[in-house]
């Protein structure tokens, strides 16, 4: 059913820290690995050719933000935000796209999707990618096949992207529970929604970069610079002498 379920108390999602993300792509590649090797793989095309591309559920952009001393590089992972009122679900003509009533995860049933692509048009975040090889839409599953897998060690019962992140920039938890660690993190760091103007109420939150430390840059004094030049000249001379 594409009619949205009543709001769930449990809202599983991710919190992405734009301050600590280093843009290493580990989340994207581990996502591709976990979701690409299972029963419904993520197709790749022209892998060894001139135009290699494929279906990925997580993309990491790198942006330059601000100018001069205020400038910084911000790495920006982008995937499904598991919105509370997602248009990608309500526009689906078949009911293949749905939001789970129990935990709010947005999924696509690959057995009933007709590949009309309307859901991808409805998503402002570009989070859904069509799989040309099998003719159905693919999207982040929040690793629903990991997070409830009780045969896994507790530390592995998280989405593959969260498990792979080397800087702890990705957090997984229940954003519907105000007392959860992830909700407290969002409150403490002023976590924000992407494009809230659309009204789809993303569950995933982004944490903004922390303010830059405004420490004075050490200014090299002219005498130091001259000394450095003199020392450099001496070592160059010594190198020349010893090289004879």
């Amino acid at each position: 059913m594409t009619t949205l379920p009543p709001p769930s108390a449990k809202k599983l999602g991710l919190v992405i820290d734009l301050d600590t993300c280093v843009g290493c792509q580990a989340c994207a590649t581990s996502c591709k690995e976990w979701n690409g090797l299972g029963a419904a793989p993520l197709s790749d095309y022209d892998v060894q050719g001139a135009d290699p591309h494929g279906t990925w559920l997580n993309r990491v952009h790198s942006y330059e933000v601000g100018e001069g001393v205020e400038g910084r590089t911000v790495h920006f992972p982008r995937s499904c935000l598991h919105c509370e009122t997602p248009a990608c679900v309500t526009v689906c003509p078949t009911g293949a796209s749905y939001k789970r009533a129990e935990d709010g995860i947005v999924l696509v049933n690959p057995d009933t999707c007709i590949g009309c692509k309307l859901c991808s048009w409805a998503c402002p975040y570009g989070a859904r990618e069509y799989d040309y090889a099998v003719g159905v839409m693919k999207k982040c599953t929040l690793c629903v096949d990991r997070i409830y897998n009780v045969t896994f060690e507790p530390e592995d019962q998280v989405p593959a992207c969260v498990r792979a992140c080397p800087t702890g920039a990705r957090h997984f938890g229940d954003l519907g529970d105000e007392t959860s660690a992830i909700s407290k993190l969002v409150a403490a760091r002023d976590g924000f929604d992407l494009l809230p103007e659309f009204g789809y109420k993303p569950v995933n939150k982004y944490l903004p970069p922390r303010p830059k430390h405004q420490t004075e840059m050490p200014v090299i004094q002219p005498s130091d610079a001259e000394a450095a030049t003199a020392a450099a000249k001496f070592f160059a001379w010594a190198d020349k002498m010893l090289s004879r």
Partner: protein
Amino acid sequence: MHPAYSVIVFTCASGAGYGLLAWLSIAGILSGGSAQPFAFGLAAFGLSFVLITVGLVSSTAHLGRPERAWRAFSQWRTSWLSREGVMAIVAYAVGGAYALLWMFGGAGGSTLFRAFGLLTFTSVIVTLWCTGMIYASLPTIRAWNHWLVAPLYVGLGLMTGRVVLNSALGFGYGAVSTNAVWLTLALILGAWIAKTVYWSQIDDAARVWTIEAATGLGSFGKVRSLDPPHTQPNFIMLEMGYDVARKHAERLRAAAVITLFLVPAVCTMLLLNDGASLTVLLTLAAVVSGGIGIGIERWLFFAEAEHVAMVYYGRDAA
């Protein structure tokens, strides 16, 4: 947005087919008690259902899994695409019954005949409206999320359907009535004005979706794309990143105005002075020109539309 030919053929062909069906239903409702012409009915309804069917079959070519298309009838509570699918079947059913009553029902003025005419007209208009709403209901694409999009799908369907009906009348009877000529001209003028207003308003609308808005990083300063996530275009870039040069868009708009509105209007106007000699030729010229024109208009509808997701990939705004 990527202009998929299957969807362009679908909306143009079925639009004209539904428009033709709408005019046939009005003709029946307004007719007196005499029996409807059998041969003309067979030809005109046949043409209408061929256009609708070609369109609907073409639309399934856009699907990744066309064999599952029947599933699209289930989610009419929320999905305009599903509503359109349901209404297309309803229009088939009531339109088919109406066509049978036209051809085999005897006296044309019967209440049943008129009731089915009204049902056909209503279901056709609702179907065209649903097609328009598939696009108009998407706030992610500013050029589509516009109040004139759904009315234009209905209006252009009625206009192109009328132009096709005139040609059928030309072939069948060698003449188009003066009232029909004025009605056609009014439809062309109305659609022309609506499309002109639409183009002017989407050109003037502010492109409010910037990369700063999309990343939420605007408070830190100007945002520029440094490294893309991948080297080759992915689905999002192929589907939403279609870019038609402004220069080409302007020329194509002019071509659309000439072929879709101007030539059919002139051909139709010439019918007023014409004896029977040129009626077939003029009405056919209007169909051919209008067919090319609606194709260009629909291609531009997709090609000129910008999707907000592309700003993540460095598009300046949407």
